[in-house]
């Protein structure tokens, strides 16, 4: 048994990660396999005021940078966008700070670090920096974070008949948790989707949910991206971004849960 199809069009993409600082650079990495130089360990999203940016944790900066790029490319005011932020691992550096402090004698936490430790810190900084008062969601889905966030955002986009920003981001895991959670690369990407009602829309992504289990697609990727795709839960959006970068009419299947998957088909590719 399968659900009805959900159709959205992709308006823009933003990206910042280990070896790229924009969607254009990521596109080249994806299509040509070339390696872009990026020696910076953190983006500096200009939309966050400087004094706030200094206190913003790395996952927040990753998410906000990609989101800002996507809204600038699309020419859409962030105030008009509901948003879904997803990180599979959370901010393990802050978790590490909190747990080390709480295992010590004085147990005194910094109030700023405490409020930054909420999983929705990125959604908070984004809505505060852009003045966006729309619905902001912050979700987690472990290894299926990308497919679950896409599913959630498609449902919201169609049900509320309004555009949605989706930000995918995970940063390197703290030393103590690394044996479990593996990831040691920064990855972020953001896409903006709108409800699609016309067959003439560009970049139409059709989604359907089926009761069939699936594995993540095997992708031919440049070495660093490959490493991210394997270990960074948010980097699994590369399976969708590669479809977009290749401008091909194609379908992919992504695992959504133990016994379900989402089928995604790209039509009228024009990136």
């Amino acid at each position: 048994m399968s659900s009805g199809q959900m159709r959205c069009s992709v308006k823009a993409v933003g990206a910042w990660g280990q070896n790229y600082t924009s969607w254009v650079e990521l596109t080249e990495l994806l299509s040509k396999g070339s390696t872009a130089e990026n020696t910076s360990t953190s983006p500096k999203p200009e939309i966050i005021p400087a004094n706030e940016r200094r206190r913003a944790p790395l996952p927040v900066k990753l998410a906000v940078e990609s989101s800002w790029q996507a809204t600038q490319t699309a020419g859409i005011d962030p105030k008009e966008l509901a948003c879904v932020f997803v990180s599979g691992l959370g901010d393990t550096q802050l978790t590490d700070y909190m747990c080390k402090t709480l295992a010590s004698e004085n147990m005194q936490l910094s109030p700023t670090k405490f409020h930054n430790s909420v999983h929705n810190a990125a959604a908070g900084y984004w809505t505060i920096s852009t003045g966006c008062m729309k619905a902001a969601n912050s979700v987690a889905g472990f290894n299926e974070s990308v497919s679950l966030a896409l599913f959630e955002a498609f449902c919201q986009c169609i049900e509320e008949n309004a555009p949605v920003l989706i930000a995918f981001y995970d940063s390197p895991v703290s030393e103590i948790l690394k044996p479990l959670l593996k990831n040691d690369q920064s990855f972020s990407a953001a896409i903006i989707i709108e409800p699609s009602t016309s067959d003439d829309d560009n970049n139409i992504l059709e989604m359907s949910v089926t009761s069939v289990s699936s594995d993540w697609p095997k992708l031919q990727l440049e070495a660093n991206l490959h490493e991210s795709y394997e270990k960074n839960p948010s980097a699994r959006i590369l399976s969708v971004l590669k479809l977009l970068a290749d401008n091909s009419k194609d379908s992919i299947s992504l695992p959504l849960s133990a016994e379900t998957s989402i089928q995604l088909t790209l039509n009228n590719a024009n990136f």
Partner: protein
Amino acid sequence: MTIRIVDYESTTAAADNIEQLRIAIKNQKSGLRKNNFSFSDLNTWIGRVPAIDDIDLGEWQSRNNAMAAYGLQQGTILEQINQLKERFGSSRIGVIMGSSTSSIDRTETAYRHLDDDGKLTKEFQQATVHNPHGPGLFIAHQTGVTGPTITINTACSSSAKVFATGQRWLNSHSVDAVLVGGVDTLCYSVLHGFDSLQLLSKDPCKPFDNDRDGINLGEASGYAILMRSEDCETDTGIELTGYGESSDAHHMSHPHPDGLGAQNAIQNALSMAQLSPRDIDYINLHGTSSQANDSIEGKLIGSLFPKTTQCSSTKAWMAHTLGAAGITEALIAIDAARTDLIPGSMNLNNLDQELDFSIQAKNMTRSMTHVMSNSFGFGGNNCCLVFSKVDG
């Protein structure tokens, strides 16, 4: 398309299950106690559920999962899920959990038991526990549900938003039933975190009182099963008629001074339910007992709602249960509508003199049709829910 509540359960410091909670509310019996959480000498009151202290879940162990498991044993939730698995197939059921701490309690414990090289010892090497989706993964495991399973972590609005997401998933026909839930437990991160913000009261909380001086923290789990009304064979006669989600765009830990974000959430929920403020019989307020929240929320309610709308904060029964508060209070509002009993705002002696709306300490008997529940979280994340009695 209308969405019905098929079944629900709540576990808090005030009561193990919804039946006992009804009695605790009727008798105004609080579950709060002076802080006795080990290693913590903070001078405050807490809503603790001691029954979960000794639960052992092996590789899934955490206090948060113990709270989730204990709540799932109450009432008929698990039985209903098993029937729905039979009827629709386990992959056609979704799980949407809300939490703010997930299982950070377990990560805290793991850090106190590192080996000589500063590494995690074997019993704490739990990848599926030490991550923000821990509650969703555990409930899927515990129920055998194999459909889409997500965790919403938007601080104190988390388990209110699960209802909005549940409705959207059902309307997409990607699932035939959804188990929504919320779970959070006492841990040092939240106790000492809220202490660092100087938000904890050294006494039992007194929401909306002139002399309120802070919040109490508590632990809880809550569950509800949602379905499209045409698929329901039995249900509670309660419909989710509206939800409103919004952002303050103001500050990470301080609400918008004019309550603008909260106002948007309330107005969106009313407009979706096609109701006006005078139609709302009862509002379970966020009412944390902090200076800022109660002042801002109280003024907003006074400006939007007529005196015929009765309001209360129920946090003096079980404290502020953070990521579990949204569903706990939504279920209290639903239960009020079904039992004709409006919980009073326990511990309210003198209403904040700047506030003017219908709120009282004593319970009240009244027939209700439409009820509302407010939840506001860090990051300026707001959610308002409206439930309506359609029959039964």
